[in-house]
């Protein structure tokens, strides 16, 4: 299996605050990697640097072999980014939005059409795709934006709190979609979350962050065994409190 993401000693500071401090990790193709941490731990900063929206102070990250510092335009051709609580253009219908996003990634009409068809299938919104996005519920919007994130079949999908604010059933749908896309299309996923249970049930590997550094990293099973815990919540508590 190939390496989809190779993060090497990545650091970023905001003034005097060190948001991310010398972080390194790898994600393989088709692998789901969960980043856990409290507010201000540095999760979003890592995701934004990988999405080429922020510039790293030091270190680098290679996505499909391309450096985020040296070749951000090549990186962007291999990633899709879903920001936390991201919206969509409310004046568009769901289908128009998918078509617009497909147009950003593909030049050929056939490729765009295939991409939109996949997006329609992934989001499962059916006839509601013909309605304006302004009429969508939060869950419907989230399914739509997740579908647009994975439909171009990127090498790496970067998801910031993908189930934030959703009910249990919608969250389950989103998790199933992520697992399916990783398996079927070989897309690597990097997702951040506050929900330990979600990471435990979705991710192949995960990391716990505090104050910009990784406190622990491994498969959920490895972490449960290492911290002698029944759930990732217990792992998180023990890792953060240094127990």
């Amino acid at each position, binding site marked *: 299996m190939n390496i989809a993401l190779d993060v090497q000693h990545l650091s970023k500071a*905001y*003034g*005097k*605050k060190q*948001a*991310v401090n010398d972080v390194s990790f790898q994600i393989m193709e088709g692998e789901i990697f969960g980043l856990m*941490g*409290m*507010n*201000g*731990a*540095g*999760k*979003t*900063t890592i995701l*934004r640097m990988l*999405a*080429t*929206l*922020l*510039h790293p102070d030091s270190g680098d990250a290679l996505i499909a072999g391309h450096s985020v510092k040296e070749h951000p*335009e090549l990186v*962007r*051709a291999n*990633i*899709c*980014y*879903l*920001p*936390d*609580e*991201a*919206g*969509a*253009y*409310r004046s568009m219908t769901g289908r128009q939005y998918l078509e617009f*996003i497909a147009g*950003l*990634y593909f030049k050929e009409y056939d490729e765009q059409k295939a991409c939109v068809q996949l997006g329609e299938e992934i989001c499962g919104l059916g006839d509601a795709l013909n309605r304006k996005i302004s009429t969508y519920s939060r869950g419907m919007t989230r399914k739509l934006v997740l579908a647009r994130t994975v439909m171009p079949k990127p090498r790496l999908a*970067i998801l910031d709190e993908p189930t934030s604010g959703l009910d249990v059933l919608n969250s389950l749908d989103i998790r199933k979609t992520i697992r399916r896309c990783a398996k079927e299309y070989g897309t690597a996923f990097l997702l*951040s979350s506050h929900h330990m249970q979600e990471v435990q049930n979705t991710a192949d590997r995960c990391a716990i962050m505090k104050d*910009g550094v990784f406190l622990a990293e491994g498969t959920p099973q490895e972490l449960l065994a290492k911290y002698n815990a029944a759930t990732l919540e217990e792992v998180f508590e023990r890792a953060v409190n240094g127990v």
Partner: protein
Amino acid sequence: MMHLLRKELRELMNKQMLLGLLGTMVLIIMLGVIMTNTMSESLESSGELHVIDYDDTEFTRSVISALEEDGYEVEVSKLVEKDNSVLMEEKDWKEAVLIRQGFTQQILEQGTAGEVSSLTVLQSTTSMDVMMSGSTSTDAFTAKVKEMLMAEKLGENMEFLADPVEVIPWTYANYNQAQVDSFALVNSLSLFDRLMPLILFMLIVLTAQTIITAVAAEKTDKTLETLLASPIPRGHVIGAKMLAALIVAVIYALSYGVGFLVTMLMTVSGTGEGMDLGQAMTDIAKLNQAVETLELQIPVWGWMLVILELLLTIGIALMASIILGALVQDAKSSQNASLPILVCAMLPYILSMISDIRQMEGITQILMYAIPFTHTFIATSCLRFHDMGLLCIGLIYQAVFLALMTAAALKLYRSDILFIGMPKRKAGKEKAN
């Protein structure tokens, strides 16, 4: 109740609102200062009379003396051989009354109206400017002649005494002269000259507000992050926004232009009811001839330059809006973000309505020229009065300004500032989870 009131006031009276208030206050004060200066200059000059006395008789001298006794400061020239346009430029006169040879004879001996010429040097097409400086000397001289004749010859020929002076208007511009009333001439010229600043002002304000709101909405909805993380070059993102806003602006401009034009034509045709059509056509032909004689017409290449300045101005407004919109932190503050653009558009717009910016002096003029929009507001004036140097400098300045704004916008959209704010506000502001 007080608890709620305090909360509502805290919501309404934020930093942006106070900045907006401050900006508006500065704008009003600046306008007040400039208007006061303009008015006081006009008032000062209204006490000065300029007389070219070709007749030079005891009667004309007595009229001039009477005017001086009334408190006027009268400057008199009797140089018959000198070209009047040269004389007026040398003496820096904007207007004068020329008493023709035989004036006294016509009035006192023949009992007919005496001829004088009302000379006006046209320097701008601002109606108020022309109205204020137009024919002060002629009006004062005519009134005094009437007053003196009334006192001397009361009851002799009341019809003649009611109108003892025949005024022949002469207008000077671009070292040319034409027998035409300056005010009528300016009115005939200024249909477009008045229309264009209004449309330009509305376009700047409207496009600025549209772009700032659109960018701020993209930022708060996080659709901007999605766009900037996509494979599309960032220049394309900015370019598409600008082009879309430009197309909308042109549609607005055309709609406004057609709307205003129809309204003006309707007004003109409405007020023209009952007029002698033949006479009206003759007047228009005469005015057109005067425009040609005075070289006040704008050639085709001139209009092309005006359109170029118009596009540069809208481009600058759009770029500034893209930058301001990107710096907006939330939807609420986007309402006030357009204030700097509004102030920069309103100042030259209002001032070009009431005064000729080209004639201003000192720091006021430097400040006005520093605003890139000003050069478009004065473009037609530069072309009509052959001020090509100023026009070219304005064009170059606008092009350089637009290039700098474009570079700044591109840099901003490639920088961290877009997502984490200005450097001094970085610490503690970023969501670093």
